[in-house]
């Protein structure tokens, strides 16, 4: 289908929550300690994120910190902020479940009803799913987090 957007969709895309996170991102900056640092880019537009993950707690299964340095559009910046706020303090298993939920929402082409219990501010991205070109923006840091977490878990195992 062609990507036809109206003014209404624009407001659905740029929810207040998104613009707030864009202007005042949470947990921004790169911090110590961390077990893995990754750098992901969106090759079509050049948006990029450097992201660090620190796992701690019992058996290292808690997301103690997600810190980042990101350059990009409002959608990618806000998504990074929302993600960090959602995932910090969760167990890795819970965080991965939230990741899956967010991914399902973004890949649902606007048909998935988001669960606010799980995604909290993340539900604001429901409108992004209707803009195929922007889904990648919203997912950039989520993919980076998953990559960094996988590397950290690999490091623990070896």
């Amino acid at each position, binding site marked *: 289908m062609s990507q036809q*957007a109206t003014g209404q969709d624009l407001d659905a895309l*740029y929810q207040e929550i998104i613009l707030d996170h864009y202007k005042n991102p949470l947990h921004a900056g790169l911090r110590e300690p961390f077990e893995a640092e990754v750098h992901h880019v969106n090759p079509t537009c*050049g*948006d990029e994120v450097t992201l660090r993950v620190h796992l701690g707690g019992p058996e290292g299964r808690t997301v103690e910190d997600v810190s980042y340095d990101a*350059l990009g*559009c*409002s959608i990618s910046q806000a998504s990074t902020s929302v993600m960090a706020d959602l995932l910090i303090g969760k167990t890795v298993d819970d965080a991965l479940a939230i990741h899956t939920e967010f991914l399902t929402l973004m890949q649902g082409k606007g048909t998935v009803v988001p669960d606010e219990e799980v995604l909290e501010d993340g539900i604001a991205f429901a409108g992004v799913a209707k803009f195929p070109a922007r889904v990648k*923006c919203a997912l950039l840091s989520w993919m980076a987090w998953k990559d960094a977490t996988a590397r950290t878990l690999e490091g623990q195992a070896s």
Partner: protein
Amino acid sequence: MVELPGLLPELEVVRKDFPILERSLAGGLPLVYLDSANTSQKPQIVIDTMVDHLERHNANVARAMHQLGAEASAAFEEARDTVAAFLGAPSRDEVIFTKNASEALNLVANTLAWAKGDRKIGEGDVVVTTEMEHHSNIVPWQLLTERTGATLRWFGLTDDGLLDLSNIDELITERTKVVTFTWVSNMLGTINPVAEITRRAHEVGALVVVDASQAAPQLPIDLAGMPETDRPDLLVFTGHKTVGPTGIGVLWGRREVLEALPPFLGGGEMIETVRMEGSTYAGIPHKFEAGTPPIVEAVGLGAALTYLGHVGMEHIHAHERAITGYAFEGLATVPGLTVLGPGDPAVRGGAISFELEGVHPHDVAQVLDVRGVAVRAGHHCARPAHARFGVQSSTRMSSYLYTTPAEIDALIEALHYTRSYFKVG
């Protein structure tokens, strides 16, 4: 309508030639297409010519003995004549059809690695490109120099977005085998001094490869009319930016150079005779056209260049300059907007990249799109040029022969709206 000197006098008639300009977008908004540097729209005559070819003349070229084959071959070769005339090429055999500009550049870079004798690029040789190139004129040369042990060097840019030629004597030396650069920058709009750089490169015996992907759509080109010292040795462009279809590009090369280079792809059509022990190759242009070519695309390109010829490249150039000047005036009224590249619209091509303070280019393009204004956001395949100016990405408007001053007004109005939408300023 605004009266601007240089504007195509028959602009409304020209617009009627492009059916897509009549469609509307979501919400019934008219289309304001300002992304022609990315790809241009197609006039009815190109669409009709291609349909007619498929409906009436379709056959393979060069290898079919029947009437349709003769017609298809004639149409294909006629397209080559049209391209040769469009470029003012000294000989029609010097025109090679490729898939696009990228393939043409890769053809040159690869065959230079495989060449024997003088032309061969190897260890110790230098290839010079520039910091304002499209990735298509950087990466093939990186691949070439990495594989052969040659060195890749490049011209930097001045703060004003021009090529910095101050170290030309350090870059173009006896070791320099190739100098390649874009005629018109797709990001900065800069028009580069082809004759001056080519002359200097020829003094050291280097080959000059010009990327005319953005020049061919908007500047008159007359290769045969250039003094030999100033004429590039190889030049490429891509069909879809010159109101032609996708899937077709052009490599023009000086006969002696093309004859000295080995084949690029092997296959049907590029051979003279094939024996299991080895083959001999066809002469140019067929030596570089292995396999069934993009026939209907070439025919469409021929129709496109004929169309541009009827409008007149001089007139199109004047139109682009008028629109660019008008856009510069409009953009200057948008607070927090900075144009990248040369500040004088008179010396630019029809692409204008800019930044809008406080709003990321993606978000600018998104809001403009909802207003029916199509622009490009990102690094426009010119990441090094963006890095040079310390920006990660930009928004780019690009006009063409069908662009009206009213469309520029719509862009400017939408930019003001974008600022208010994002509550900046």
